[in-house]
């Protein structure tokens, strides 16, 4: 049982149902178009100097797919007997397992992506010469 459930609103309908409303769809298309435009503007300004950190940062950011994986991994009851029995009853357990793998890989991307980006950005310094001269 979810100990945090009292924070959440009622109604445990599957997430996919939310996308069915046509207005939601149109809004999603707006978001996509505007994000594409904004992305083009923002990313064109990143200098070639920082293209490797950029790739690693966008990787980490797209690890936000973790929020989708979390819902899949936690929405259904995992039952190893049903899983082994197969058929329709096994679907929920399979979904949980797939969600688990997705949570794992997305978390790896988020943690290593942000970690490596920071490690790289720390190396880009302007004042090395001054420091060495001061020694």
């Amino acid at each position, binding site marked *: 049982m979810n100990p945090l459930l009292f924070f959440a609103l009622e109604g445990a309908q599957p997430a*996919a149902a939310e996308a069915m409303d046509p207005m939601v769809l149109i809004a999603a298309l707006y978001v996509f178009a505007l994000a594409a435009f904004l992305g083009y503007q923002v990313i064109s300004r990143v200098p070639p100097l920082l293209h490797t950190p950029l790739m690693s940062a966008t990787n980490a950011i797209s690890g936000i797919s973790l929020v989708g994986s979390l819902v899949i991994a936690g929405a259904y009851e995992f039952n190893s007997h049903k899983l082994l029995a197969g058929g329709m009853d096994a679907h929920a357990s399979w979904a949980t397992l797939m969600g688990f793998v997705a949570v794992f890989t997305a978390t790896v991307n988020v943690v290593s992506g942000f970690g490596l980006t920071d490690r790289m950005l720390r190396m880009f310094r302007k004042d090395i010469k001054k420091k060495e001269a001061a020694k």
Partner: protein
Amino acid sequence: MDTQAIQHVVQSPNYILEFTYLIASILFIWGLKSLSHPDTARQGMHLAEAGMAAAILGTLFHHDIHFFGWIIAGLILGSLVGAAFAIWVPMTAMPQRTALSHAFGAVAAALVGIAEFTMHAGTMSMFTRSALGLEVMLGTLTTTGSLIACGKLQGFIRGTPVQFKGQQFLNLLIFVGMIGCFGHVLYDPLATGYFYGMVALGFLFGVMLVIPIGSADMPVVMSLLNSYAGLSSAATGFVLGNNILIIAGTLDGFSGFILSILMCKAMNRSITNVLFGGFGSVQHEAGPGAQGEMREISLEDAAVRLAYAGKVVFVPGYGLATAQAQHAVRDLANALEARGVTVKYGIHPVAGRMPGHMNVLLAEANVPYGDLYEMETINPELDSTDVAVVVGANDVVNPDARDNPNSPIAGMPIIEVDKAKTVIVLKRGQGRGFSGLENPLFFKQNTSMLYGDAKNTLSQLAQEVKNV
């Protein structure tokens, strides 16, 4: 499906969670914007990290989540592996790591899609199903494609292109089969057999797409796979009706797309040419300049020439990274600067195995970023350069690209080291470069060759310069 329940969900979203996602999206964009300058980049990325943490924590309160065991296990395992990557992956291995992370991102998207299909195929709208199909196709082909790219970069798989007769026809067949399965699922959501057929063909297509591509073209392939992984995430956002996924996925997708275009421009090739050209598999005629004798120079002479120069430009290529010579270059540059020589670095956009790779390697070796010059800025300066030192680079300084219209790399922008007063080329041996092309630069009057392992040669040069 109870329609009233659906209405209920649509009309009463979790406002706190949606608001968290909105803040996180803004922080992501802010973070990427801060990457426009190295001085602001770190701070901006910290904001993006905070946004990510908030979004993940917020999602744990999602009303669909009832069981936490697998979630916690995945989060802990993922964090451990991710932290290990972040701490121990050497900068020379960044391309492999990035390819692997494209595979991880894509497999997450594909699995979410497959799980959604297993649970809700019957109740999805046509639009949701088409988004889901795109998500799963892009996800699966990016997964295997990136794994192959990673294997090639790491050396598990031979880097040379794998080509055979009828390959493109076979690829077309696989592609058409995949799209066909997709079309069938679109009209018959309960045709699970076709759905899994699409999944299998997606995995296969990813392999087939990347095996014919040589290691030298990896910067383009990496950027392209980056783009696919991002778009696959964005499609997940459409399936789940989740705006932050759409935004982050689109940003990632476009970033990859822009980088692919830049990399293609830097090689003067089209994306289709990279994907289907199988570069480096055929021997081409060299230009008229590629004859004559290469002049060798001794270590001592090279050191003297460098020590008495006014301005020296280093042009590093991937060979610098394979020889782990970035620190040795820095030592030599230090010794030269101590004598009052001006030292600059000319970085070609495709130097290395991923966009911007060479900059990171040199930054790691404590080269200040003010000394790293892009191709467009360093080229006008080469006329006034006394010695240009080419370290482990070949095609990016090949004058044939500029002078010989029959060359396979004709039109590719190069760093014009042949315009410098003298050129010293550090090379492992007399063999050809990665693409198998002859390089007329090596036969020019003002070019001298210095053979040997780049790291050793550079350290010895630094010693000699100090003794001059």
